[in-house]
């Protein structure tokens, strides 16, 4: 057990920051040529990386964005890598590290959270934030004991198409079909994407009547959605 694991968050982050800054600098976009990194431990991995699936943000086992929770599973090209499995549903019970998940289609799965599991619940967080009754989407590897050892868990994630019906300082009124949804704006966390531009904290170009693709975390308690990203078409501000 290293120092970074035993310290508090600040100490852990300080340790990891130093480790991160000691790393090699890689410049540019797109696939890496083998010579871009110094020959070393990365060598064989780099060669494999040039033949990745082409899915932005994908790992050998699947994509990693919050959006990826809705993407089709990726079949690993490397035969040495086991095919990942998926689970979804509502958390019926939490037994230590294992979540009992009731699937949407009557199925049941046992999802194991490990120290290497990423947990998303509107933001990158820890397993302590997971509650009974939450919705879940998980990617991982099936273990012999029947549990799914998860690499990534997305809790209460929603990705829906909506129309902006009202804008307030702390929330958006959204319409999704016949349903009205309250979208909570989270300080320093909600971002907007205008057309193809990069996500920005500038929400001032959202207008009433706009169609938006909304990514967020659903709150089971009141049915509202904590907004993570509101993506609207370019030409924001045009009335429909």
């Amino acid at each position: 057990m290293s120092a970074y694991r035993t310290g508090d968050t600040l100490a852990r982050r300080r340790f990891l920051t130093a480790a991160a800054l000691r790393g090699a600098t890689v410049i540019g976009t797109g696939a890496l040529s083998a010579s871009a990194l110094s020959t070393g431990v990365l060598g064989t991995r780099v060669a494999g990386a040039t033949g990745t699936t082409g899915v932005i943000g994908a790992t050998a086992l699947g994509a990693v964005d919050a959006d990826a929770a809705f993407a089709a599973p990726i079949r690993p090209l490397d035969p040495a890598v086991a095919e990942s499995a998926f689970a979804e549903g509502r958390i019926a019970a939490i037994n230590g590290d294992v979540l009992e998940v009731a699937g949407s289609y009557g199925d049941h799965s046992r999802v194991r959270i490990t120290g290497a599991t990423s947990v998303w619940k509107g933001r990158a967080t820890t397993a302590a934030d997971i509650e009974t009754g939450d919705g879940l989407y998980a990617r991982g590897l099936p273990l012999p004991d029947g549990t799914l050892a998860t690499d990534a868990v997305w809790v209460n994630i929603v990705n829906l198409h909506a129309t902006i019906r009202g804008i307030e300082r702390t929330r958006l009124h959204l319409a999704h079909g016949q349903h009205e949804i309250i979208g909570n704006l989270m300080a320093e966390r909600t971002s907007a994407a205008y057309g193809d531009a990069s996500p920005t904290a500038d929400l001032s170009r959202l207008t009433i009547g706009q169609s938006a693709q909304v990514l967020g975390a659903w709150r089971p308690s009141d049915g509202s959605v904590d907004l993570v990203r509101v993506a609207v078409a370019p030409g924001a501000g045009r009335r429909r």
Partner: protein
Amino acid sequence: MSALARDLAPLVLAGVLGPAGAGKLFGRGTARQAPRTALARLLRDGGRAALVLRVLGAVELLLAAALLAPPTTPLPGAAAALLGAGFLGYLGYARAAAPGSSCGCTARQEAPLTWRAFARAAAVLAGGAAAALARQPWWTAAARHPAAAACLVLAAAVVLTALSANPERRWRMPLRRLRLRIAGHPLAATATATAVAPATTPATTQVAVPPDAAGAPPPVPLTAAGARTAVPVAATVELLERSRAWQSVSRVVRSALMDHWDDGGWRILQFAGVYGGGTAARPVLVLFAMDAAASLDTVREPAVRVSVIDADSGAPVMATA
């Protein structure tokens, strides 16, 4: 006042029936929405329902014209009252037979059956009865009491608008738009924060990774974790995922973003992964250090520091530097 209301009823009723009738008769949405109405269920045929809706629209238009034009007879009013009673009966049936369906009342929006539909039908029935009892043409009554007539018509318009099939679109959204226009955009401050942030965090740009800075890390002071910068984490992750650095270690990464924090102009992104295969496989942490102020909008060739450390010991795994 009640006499004035009775005499003005033909005008108000025509204002209700005219647009509704025109919508059904000429609206392009009639054929599309007819199969979803309770009428289609009653007639067991969406096409027939569309035809009936169009005929009904024509009747409503004719009634509106008859209510507005001389000679003044009780007939159009009585016919409208009959129509209102028919609507109520139809709605009662629809409520029982197909509660989730659209009423087809205005043939514009897909409006599920609510109390508003019943209130509108009742208003047509009451308006028709009042119009049938009118003693003088509406234009004569309006000319005698112009101010009271204007107030009455306005009040009726407000009530009828509130009863419209889609109040959200009809008046709540325009009101909200108006409020935004008058009071300003409630989220205008987020634009200001975005614009000034780079100026208030000069360290961000100063320590951005130069191409040849792959050596020893600068002794960066640890600032408050998660310090505010203009670039959301989502934009940093987007930049990372398109970077060559990500491609170099994507085979090692297993988790999604586990943690992130800002530190002296850097943004550190932490992932978990597995390095090596078979029995030599071991859990690792994959760390990326990026310019906290960079995004795809500002940087074409992102410079990213990549580090892979053993998850248990914290020792570097890849000799990447």
